[in-house]
């Protein structure tokens, strides 16, 4: 008994640090969530933590902020825009990269290694290096402020990493598998669709989640190529302009911020394993 008490006491600092860290990390987000469901008068008069005195008094909460921000401030439209931008910007680069990665992994052609090294080398290029020439070209071609323009931009920026990741994954599949498939008369296309892709579902899922979150949370690319066009602005762009226009209206700003986070949080909690793997693999993305 005495020994157990001693053991617990000696581990007390460990628990204190860990639980303390978890609380410090969660508190800012909790403050956002709580404030987003409090009425304006309450938010400006008292700190959000005062609700903790009687957290189950539901009369102090309201959904009015969400109604206002979605309908009159255009967040609903921005949410739709974010989906319209993010879904194709995830599918297109992964589709294109899968073909290239397959060729780099399993086909023989002159210059294979060199070209692959160049593709990987492009990981070092920061987005900033491409903005001016591309924006100028977009303005000439009328692609600025269009969905197609931003889909292609995200495709370009996402490709080196996607090719790199998938090439490594395809390359690690057993060689015999492909050789026996070719012996059985399978074409390259059949081997790609029937063997390589189905066997790579975990890698594809991680990559898709990574690219999805990257595009959903992106501000810079949207700012450059869609900046100023309200009708196509995604959540991040909308939110950053609300920070300026709403100023101290924290009840609305917090609700808007929470809307922009809702989908990533759902992905985080439901697909945590792929999510973590995707983020980890993405650590080399430029």
């Amino acid at each position, binding site marked *: 008994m005495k020994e157990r008490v001693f053991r617990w006491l000696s581990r007390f600092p460990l628990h204190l640090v860990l639980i303390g860290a978890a609380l410090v990390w969660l508190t800012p987000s909790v403050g956002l969530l709580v404030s987003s469901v409090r009425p304006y008068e309450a938010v400006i008069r008292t700190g959000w933590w005062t609700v903790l005195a009687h957290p189950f008094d539901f009369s102090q909460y309201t959904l009015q902020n969400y109604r206002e921000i979605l309908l009159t401030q255009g967040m609903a439209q921005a949410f739709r825009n974010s989906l319209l931008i993010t879904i194709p910007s995830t599918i297109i680069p992964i589709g*294109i990269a899968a073909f290239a990665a*397959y060729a780099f992994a399993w086909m023989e052609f002159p210059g294979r290694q060199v070209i692959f090294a160049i593709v990987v080398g492009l990981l070092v290029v920061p987005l900033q290096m491409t903005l001016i020439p591309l924006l100028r070209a977009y303005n000439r071609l009328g692609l600025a402020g269009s969905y197609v323009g931003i889909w292609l931009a995200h495709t370009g920026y996402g490709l080196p990493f996607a090719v790199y990741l998938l090439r490594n994954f395809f390359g690690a599949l057993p060689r015999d598998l492909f050789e026996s498939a070719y012996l059985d008369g399978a074409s390259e296309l059949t081997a790609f669709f029937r063997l390589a892709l189905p066997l790579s579902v975990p890698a594809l899922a991680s990559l898709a989640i990574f690219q999805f979150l990257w595009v959903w*949370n*992106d501000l810079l690319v949207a700012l450059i190529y869609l900046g100023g066009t309200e009708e196509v602005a995604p959540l991040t762009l909308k939110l950053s302009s609300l920070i300026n226009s709403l100023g101290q209206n924290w009840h609305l700003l917090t609700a808007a911020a929470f809307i922009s986070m809702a989908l990533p949080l759902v992905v985080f909690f439901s697909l945590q394993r792929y999510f973590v793997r995707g983020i980890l693999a993405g650590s080399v993305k430029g």
Partner: protein
Amino acid sequence: MRWRSRLTPWLYIGPTLLILGAYLVYPTLSTLYLSFFDKRSENFVGLENYRWVFTSSAMHVAFRNNLLWIVLFTGLTVSLGLILAVMADRVRYESPVKSAIFLPMAISFVGAGVIWLFVYAYRPPDTPQIGLLNAIWTGLFRQEPVGWLQNRATSNFGLIAVGVWIWTGFCMVILSAAYKSIPRELLEAARVDGANEWQVFWRIIIPTMKPTLAVVTTTMIINVLKVFDIVYVMTNGNYGTEVIANRMYKEMFHFHNFGRASAIAVILLLAIIPVMMVNIRRFQEQEALR
């Protein structure tokens, strides 16, 4: 048949090469070229833009701040990530603690910006403080409220704290995986031989995890060099918080000086290349070991 099998690989990689050429290779070369021209890209000015990058006071502030970010942000994210990874391994509630700390990785920098603008919110003295930090500062420490992001003494630290809040979980998860792959017998043997926990940490855990620590550190440095969203959203580089990437955006969109903006981008690329090289090399070593 023969030409067909020769053509097939090019059909597979064709779209990738086309898009990479248009979106990365050509613009990079073009930016390099533009960095030697004046603001409207009409007259050749030689190294004038680079001279400006290295001598103007605006860029000095940006370089200084990026350096401050490198030291504080990288140091804090990596060390906190390591400490939390090692500590969390010893308790039964490891996974909820890790989830709580990893959670901000799911959120956009803009969203994180709003969360922290609210934490730092300032109200005049003698009115109720609704920002958490000023509430603690005035309530617990009995001090006058501070405009954390508007005060030059604290603004950079306020922004760096947001970065640390976002990225510590990332470092922790990677370092945790590396820590768990250290053979338990190795640690036990050291303890049996009389090493205390402190010695085990410094003499065994740290040296064994060195390759992973290097990858995590370089990844954080690359993040810092390109840091943009947090600064753009929270202070837009005011109050002494300017950073390289935000300055480039300003040169491009506010001052329409494409020569200077291009030169800044080139400097950014040159700063990233060596760090990225280390990163890719380490990453491939790890791949090879798997």
